[in-house]
């Protein structure tokens, strides 16, 4: 009972952060839970995934209605990411069976990439409201009508936006899907910077649309269900916490200042990058084992 209450409160906080940052929650829940809770990492990963998907499912309808989560972008990107994630998962199984220690190098590389994205985002200007002119839109973006609008309460007006670099982004999202599938990761950490910096989606649209894209990762729940790694005792408090938190977070995401969203995303990217680097280094024996389950 004690652990259920702690788990509920912990996931409630993650649920509030998740729709605001566009990161599914698993990226925070899994590494921190392995430090806090007595459950094996199998159950933590299973609960983390159900939680991340539930938080996305709970917040997306609200964000879609407000014009923040863009269904057109999802319709274009989902077919690319889902199939490359399946291919990545297949390749990942082959690679890990042939080269078991390789996952630590990958974690290290992934951490380095996330920290690089963090540095680029930190130095970039105009992330809150990138100004993509009609003439900057490529032929794909124009023909698919990749544009949108939402009412921004902090400005007191409707903000319109256009999307650019659709062709390049299709390739980048294919790579993200492949990497996410290969190493069993969510892709929120990558979705937001690409949507924002490469495609020119305003930061709040990028975070909301990232939540929409995360829903396409739901089939990964099957991995844990078929192994019996989802237990009501762990999943129910987590889902309750994340669902209530995500409803609060979706409303917060609408009214919060975009500059705060930017710093929150940066903070999460830094944390996720650093945790991956630490896990990779401890797996390779370079540093002592400080994160359980790594």
């Amino acid at each position, binding site marked *: 009972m004690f*652990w259920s209450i702690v788990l509920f409160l912990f996931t409630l906080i993650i649920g509030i952060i998740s729709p605001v940052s566009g990161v599914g929650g698993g990226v925070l829940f899994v590494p921190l839970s392995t430090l806090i809770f007595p*459950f*094996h990492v199998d*159950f933590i990963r299973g609960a983390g995934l*159900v939680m991340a*998907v*539930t938080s996305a*499912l*709970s917040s*997306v*309808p609200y964000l*879609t*209605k*407000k*014009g923040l*989560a863009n*269904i*057109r972008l999802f*319709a274009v990107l*989902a*077919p690319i990411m*889902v*199939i490359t*994630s*399946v291919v990545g*998962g*297949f390749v990942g199984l082959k690679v890990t069976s042939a080269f078991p220690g390789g996952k630590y190098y990958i974690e290290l590389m992934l951490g380095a990439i996330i920290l690089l994205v963090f540095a680029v985002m930190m130095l970039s200007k105009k992330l809150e409201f990138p100004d993509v002119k009609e003439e900057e839109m490529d032929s794909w973006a124009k*023909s*698919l*009508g990749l544009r949108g*609008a*939402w*009412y921004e*309460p902090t400005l*007191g*007006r*409707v903000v319109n936006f256009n999307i650019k670099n659709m062709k390049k982004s299709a390739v980048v999202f294919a790579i993200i899907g492949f990497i996410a599938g290969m190493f069993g990761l969510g892709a929120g950490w990558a979705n937001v910077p690409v949507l924002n910096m490469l495609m020119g989606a305003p930061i709040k649209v990028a975070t909301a649309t990232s939540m929409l894209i995360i*829903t*396409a990762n*739901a*089939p*990964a*729940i*099957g*991995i*844990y*269900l*078929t*192994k*019996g*790694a*989802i*237990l*009501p*005792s*762990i*999943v*129910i408090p987590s*889902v309750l916490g994340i*669902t209530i938190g995500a409803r609060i977070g979706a409303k917060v995401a609408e009214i919060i200042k975009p500059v705060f969203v930017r710093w929150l995303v940066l903070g999460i990217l830094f944390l996720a990058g650093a945790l991956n680097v630490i896990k990779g280094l401890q797996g390779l024996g370079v540093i002592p084992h400080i994160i359980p389950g790594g």
Partner: protein
Amino acid sequence: MVEKEQEVKVDDMGLVFGKSMIVFTIIGIIMMIVPAILYFVGIRQYIPLADVSKYWGGSAAEFWQHTKGFHVHGYGWIFNNLFYTDTLSMLGVLLLMITPLISMIAAMFKGPTKAYKILLFLAAVEFVISIFFKAG
């Protein structure tokens, strides 16, 4: 503010996607939580709560070996034990897993152009492939 919000035009495709998602998410959560409450109060438990907290520190394989004496593979452990509240609760998780698929199919019919209908159809087909692939 209400007037300003009305200036924002959201695709019917997006609205249908969102509406179907919220309906099935709520149903999924209820299907998950109601049996779980019965489980927590001690009704028809497949794995007793005391055993869960005793063995949740081990891997999933070790957990099942200690509590039930076998290893789990596939969805059989859920569908063969639906008279137990903890396994019944997993049906809700399954529904949550396929909710994005239901939403994609619903939104497909509201696609503003043929291109979006095809893209959502492709995404739905790939989603199904992904379910089978990821279930091993």
